[in-house]
């Protein structure tokens, strides 16, 4: 039996273990309070300002999102979200094939059988990354019902979204009016209990491990016919009652942190590639065609699936591509199926017959430097050779087709042939071209007059007037796409034979109705980058326009536009290898008399262009083995080979090892002013101020260098306070692009009069509800892009966030990047214009959109630190051009009469060549700020490159994404923070480290200026005045944590006290006994 002394001795130790545990948990909770607050809907601190009548007047929600007393109207907000989501899918779903007689649209009351596991568990968002949250309207309900029960767990994207939602009566809609076979839906629901598909599905079976140990073959897990029969052997009997039409859904998930990999498909699927249809999917198609007169295939994928066999299958009446439609997009899909809306979208990517035919696929996946042991910096031993150059997506397929027709460069050789039976043949290699889409009606598009040339010293543009007439029977919208072809000189600069330059979309035109669109075509987007060009000042590299014939052509996609150009050049199917005759009337042709290396040599920001990405080109490194870039002068001889096991040359090792910046210690920094009390500006007083406002310098001078270093380090979601200028610590931004990812009842700005309370029936609604980026892109509707950005800005007001890490702006290098779901298109012009519209719309509500990932996130494999090598021409024309369009926002300079542009950015994990992008002054300052005139918040990706603090700040980064950090200067100290503890240059961060470095002190001020200016343009200014301060709040989890410490501590001390008492008593007893 335990003596009491033993007992208390033992208990004191037990309680001490528990006390340590409780203390650890408490510290963890405190350190990550921001993350916990978001997850639990609590607030550890609130920003408070005394109301002086100036608050919440700069940016306000739309009237129909407010009640009459100014409080928030969640019903109005959600209703409009549903309508917008519906519109995005109605305008962004692409009709690829259709027989109007036997296919779409379907009559009201049609009895439909849905086949495919995705009919029961459709993909509405990405598995990891840009998901769709909250209750969604399932496809079958959109087809057949008029309301959805948002309280039904079955309609939640995730059970983690459990919460408060309004009842079904509150969210009525007009559905398709169809009758849907419940037997098949029940079967698939039963099957999914085992399969476990989710509506936000991830590419879980295709993940990459850097050591190849975890390559897992992909399996879309489509049940077989036998699987269906095992659940209900008489399932086909139900076809009789629902036999008017079959809708077969096939899909592929998308997600961050995973790619599809060449050849990585599970055994037994009878598919060679992950995006190819499997046997089970084919069997479903056969089942449908054998049993139904009308067969519609819905492609529920943002990765280009290989669907040529569906195009060729005469029994498949219609193919409709929908991407990931978000929470409400199936209403729009239903509208198309019912004919309420005529489809009006165009594909944002080329759909190849075989995705492996893209030359980029020769260098996709996992590549490690052969001499990785010489590379000391973490995440720096992987590379990617992007030797396809500018020939990405349609730029490859259309250019090669052009050269086949023109007989150039052995384009019709067998090199790169995957689907052609003999030599390379476009029609055998491409199923559907970029920009292609069908409608229920027909349109004519006519260029009115001669496009007017607008030319200044550094601009050439053409203003097109295009008359669009609906010549069919259905009302509908029509996209006008204008492409361009610059003259190609054999052996000269690489050029795409056709390139999207501009686009617009009509309003809905009734049968017979016309609309004239005015479209500006900026030839800056057709200029070619010549990195070998010697500029007048001796530098190298600029944009040029060769002399010769230029063609600007309209078309239903890239291929149609190119055929029109070829027709204008006298080519026909009779005299060439054209696959269809073009329409020369859709082409405007003009001549540039002279070679022009002046017009676009100076940017809109009045800066001379020059090479800034020499480190991107592998061939520029001394000692590097040569790589051959694809050239149209010799398709066969230069078709990419796979560059495996390359040796990083000695001249590259310093770059790979992060040696980008050397700290100065002897500079005279006396000109730099810190801690100034000459002025006493407060941050809020610069609300809406221009970037060049003189007060910024004075404000920055008031700051201490310590405050400056903190602000340049911690870039969100929580920003550190800057007490010297009245900037308070607060949670100010979040992630995503298809909506804000914070529920209404977790607003970071609860003082806003429109804040939705916990008691609101829609309190748990999360605004991250819209379709994935490719679906948005496919609409080709600038007004819609703007409206989407504006609505997300509205969401930001309701969730109290000033900055959004999104949308995604990278281009699709190929179909296998798992993150293609977050990025718009293979075309930078389309992507850039979308982002521009989105950002400008968001800015009207004070939301700073920060597109990501700048730049070259071309695959998820090895995304952390991979070194992608490419020519500067490819870097600028294929990817950076999109960012340039968004950053310059020239269209809105004209509209608003002042220089405007995107005000935010997130960098990528990858390098550019051997240099980390955040540490690349070429990328972050020379191109981004100097050439494009970017001002604003430029943050790294999560926890990225924190070992390169000096180099990154000097390069032009304004802050780091350090998610979870809060309590700056106290709980979180920059100078002992683990994230910044291991600097590559070996120099520990300290407040006086830049005493002798003038450039760094200037860079810090530049960084702070950009961040603070971005905030001054945002909805953050709604809540700021001279009284703004942070007030800590007790949360239930913090109170619980404190209580556990008190209890366990008390028990430990109590046990010790009892032990002492017992010891004394025992001693006394022993003394008495001895006596």
């Amino acid at each position: 039996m335990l003596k009491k002394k033993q007992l208390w001795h033992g208990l004191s130790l037990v309680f001490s273990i528990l006390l340590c545990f409780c203390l650890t948990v408490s510290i963890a909770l405190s350190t990550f309070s921001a993350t916990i607050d978001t997850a639990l809907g609590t607030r550890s601190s609130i920003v408070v300002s005394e109301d002086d009548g100036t608050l919440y007047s700069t940016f306000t929600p739309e009237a129909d999102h407010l009640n009459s007393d100014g409080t928030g109207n969640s019903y109005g907000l959600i209703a409009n979200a549903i309508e917008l989501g519906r519109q995005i899918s109605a305008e962004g779903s692409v009709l690829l094939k259709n027989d109007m007689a036997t296919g779409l649209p379907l009559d009201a009351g049609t009895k439909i059988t849905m086949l495919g596991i995705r009919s029961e568990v459709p993909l509405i968002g990405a598995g990891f990354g840009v998901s769709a949250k909250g209750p969604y309207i399932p496809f079958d309900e959109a087809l057949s019902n008029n309301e959805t029960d948002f309280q039904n767990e079955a309609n939640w994207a995730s059970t983690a979204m459990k919460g408060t939602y309004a009842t079904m009566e509150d969210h009525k809609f007009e559905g398709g009016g169809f009758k849907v076979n419940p037997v098949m839906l029940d079967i698939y629901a039963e099957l999914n209990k085992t399969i476990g598909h989710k509506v936000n599905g991830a590419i879980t079976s295709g993940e990459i491990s850097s050591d190849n140990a975890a390559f897992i073959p992909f399996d879309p897990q489509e049940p077989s016919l036998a699987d269906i029969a095992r659940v209900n052997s008489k399932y086909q009997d139900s076809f009789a009652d629902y036999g008017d039409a079959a809708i077969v859904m096939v899909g592929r998930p998308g997600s961050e942190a995973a790619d599809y990999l060449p050849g990585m498909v599970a055994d037994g699927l009878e598919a060679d590639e992950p995006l190819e249809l499997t046997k089970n999917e084919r069997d479903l198609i056969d089942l449908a065609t054998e049993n139904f007169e009308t067969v519609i295939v819905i492609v529920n994928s943002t990765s280009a699936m290989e669907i040529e066999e569906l195009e060729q299958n005469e029994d498949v009446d219609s193919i409709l591509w929908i991407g990931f439609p978000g929470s409400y997009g199936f209403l729009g899909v239903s509208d198309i199926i019912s004919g309420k809306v005529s489809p009006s979208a165009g594909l944002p990517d080329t759909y190849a017959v075989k995705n492996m035919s893209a030359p980029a696929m020769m260098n996709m996946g996992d590549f490690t430097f052969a001499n990785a042991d010489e590379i000391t910096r973490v995440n720096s031993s992987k590379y990617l050779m992007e030797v396809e150059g500018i020939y990405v997506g349609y730029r490859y397929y259309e250019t090669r087709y052009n050269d086949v027709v023109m007989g150039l460069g052995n384009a019709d050789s067998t090199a790169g042939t995957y689907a052609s039976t003999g030599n390379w043949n476009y029609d055998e290699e491409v199923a559907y071209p970029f920009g292609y889409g069908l409608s229920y009606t027909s349109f004519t598009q006519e260029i009115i007059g001669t496009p007017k040339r607008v030319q200044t010293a550094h601009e050439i543009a053409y203003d097109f007037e295009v008359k669009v007439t609906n010549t069919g029977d259905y009302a509908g919208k029509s996209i006008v796409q204008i492409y361009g072809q610059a003259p190609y000189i054999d052996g000269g600069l690489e050029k795409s034979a056709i390139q999207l330059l501009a686009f617009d979309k009509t309003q809905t035109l009734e049968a017979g109705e016309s609309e004239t669109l005015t479209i500006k075509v900026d030839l800056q987007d057709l200029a070619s980058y010549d990195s070998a060009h010697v500029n007048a000042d001796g530098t190298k590299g600029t944009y040029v326009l060769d002399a010769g014939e230029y063609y600007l052509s309209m078309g239903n996609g890239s291929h149609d536009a190119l055929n029109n150009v070829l027709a204008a050049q006298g080519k026909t199917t009779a005299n060439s290898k054209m696959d269809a005759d073009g329409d020369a009337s859709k082409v405007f042709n003009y001549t540039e008399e002279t070679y022009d290396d002046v017009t676009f040599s100076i940017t809109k920001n009045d800066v001379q262009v020059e090479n800034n990405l020499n480190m991107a080109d592998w061939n520029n490194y001394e000692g590097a083995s040569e790589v051959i870039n694809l050239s149209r002068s010799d398709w066969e001889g230069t078709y990419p080979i796979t560059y495996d096991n390359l040796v990083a040359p000695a001249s590259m090792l310093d770059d790979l090892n992060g040696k980008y910046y050397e700290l100065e210690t002897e500079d005279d920094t006396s000109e730099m002013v810190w801690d100034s009390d000459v002025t006493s500006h407060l941050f809020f007083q610069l609300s809406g101020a221009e970037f060049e406002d003189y007060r910024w310098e004075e404000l920055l001078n008031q700051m201490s260098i310590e405050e400056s270093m903190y602000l340049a380090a911690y870039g969100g979601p929580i920003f550190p306070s800057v007490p010297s200028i009245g900037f308070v610590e607060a949670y100010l931004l979040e992630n995503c692009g298809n909506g804000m990812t914070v529920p209404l009842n977790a607003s970071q700005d609860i003082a806003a009069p429109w804040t939705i309370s916990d008691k609101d029936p829609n309190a748990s609604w999360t605004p991250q509800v819209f379709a994935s980026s490719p679906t948005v892109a496919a609409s080709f509707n600038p007004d819609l892009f703007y409206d989407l950005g504006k609505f997300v800005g509205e969401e930001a007001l309701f969730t109290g966030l000033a900055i959004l890490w999104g949308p995604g702006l990278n281009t699709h290098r190929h179909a296998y990047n798992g993150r293609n779901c977050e990025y718009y298109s293979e075309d930078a012009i389309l992507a850039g214009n979308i982002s521009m519209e989105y950002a400008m719309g968001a800015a009207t509500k004070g939301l700073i959109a920060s597109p990501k990932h700048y730049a070259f996130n071309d695959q998820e494999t090895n995304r952390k630190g991979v070194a992608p090598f490419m020519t500067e021409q490819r870097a600028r024309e294929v990817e950076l051009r999109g960012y340039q369009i968004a950053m310059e926002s020239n269209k809105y300079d004209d509209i608003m009469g002042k220089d405007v542009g995107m005000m935010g950015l997130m960098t990528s994990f990858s390098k550019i060549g051997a240099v980390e992008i955040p540490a690349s002054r070429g990328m972050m300052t020379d191109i981004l700020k100097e050439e494009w005139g970017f001002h604003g918040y430029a943050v790294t990706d999560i926890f990225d490159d924190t070992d390169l603090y000096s180099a990154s700040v000097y390069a032009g980064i304004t802050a780091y994404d350090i998610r979870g950090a809060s309590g700056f200067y106290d709980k979180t100290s920059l100078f002992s923070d683990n994230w910044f503890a291991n600097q590559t240059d070996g120099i520990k961060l300290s407040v006086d480290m830049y005493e002798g470095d003038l450039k760094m002190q200037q860079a810090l001020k530049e960084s702070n200026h950009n961040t603070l200016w971005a905030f001054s343009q945002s909805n953050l200014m709604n809540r700021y005045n001279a009284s703004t301060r942070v007030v800590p709040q007790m949360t239930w989890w913090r109170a619980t944590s404190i209580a556990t410490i008190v209890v366990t501590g008390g028990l430990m001390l109590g046990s010790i006290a009892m032990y002492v008492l017992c010891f004394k008593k025992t001693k006394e007893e022993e003394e008495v006994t001895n006596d």
Partner: protein
Amino acid sequence: MTNYLKKQNTTFWLSAAAILIAVVGIVMLTLSNGVKGYSINSYALILVAVIVAIGLNITGTYFTDKQGAHSPIVAALSLASVLLLGFALGNILLNRLVLASALFTYDAVNTIGWGVFYNSIFAIGAFLTSSILISVSSFIKGKN
């Protein structure tokens, strides 16, 4: 030595096991800390804490022989030892929380990170086990 060991009871063996397991924990901690880019800021402090804890435990074993398993000195030494081990494992946990959250979300394919994480878990587990063994031994009568 053998005679000495033969005379020892459960308390001794539990303390010995606690010491050995703590040493294993040090090894795992060092392995975790030694990976490029994953060093723990307070590694030195943690190491010192564990070594001191081991030292206190050894000292406690000596005083157990002299004064019994529940003398005030032994009680204080064992309490200090457990608190130091608790400090160590708590520190490791806090240092690796962000890594863990990354591995379970956006950085799931980081095999190097997983290795660091598992070594950290083993270190935490070792120090926790060591604490528990010391605590268990404190309930045992031992030599008086």
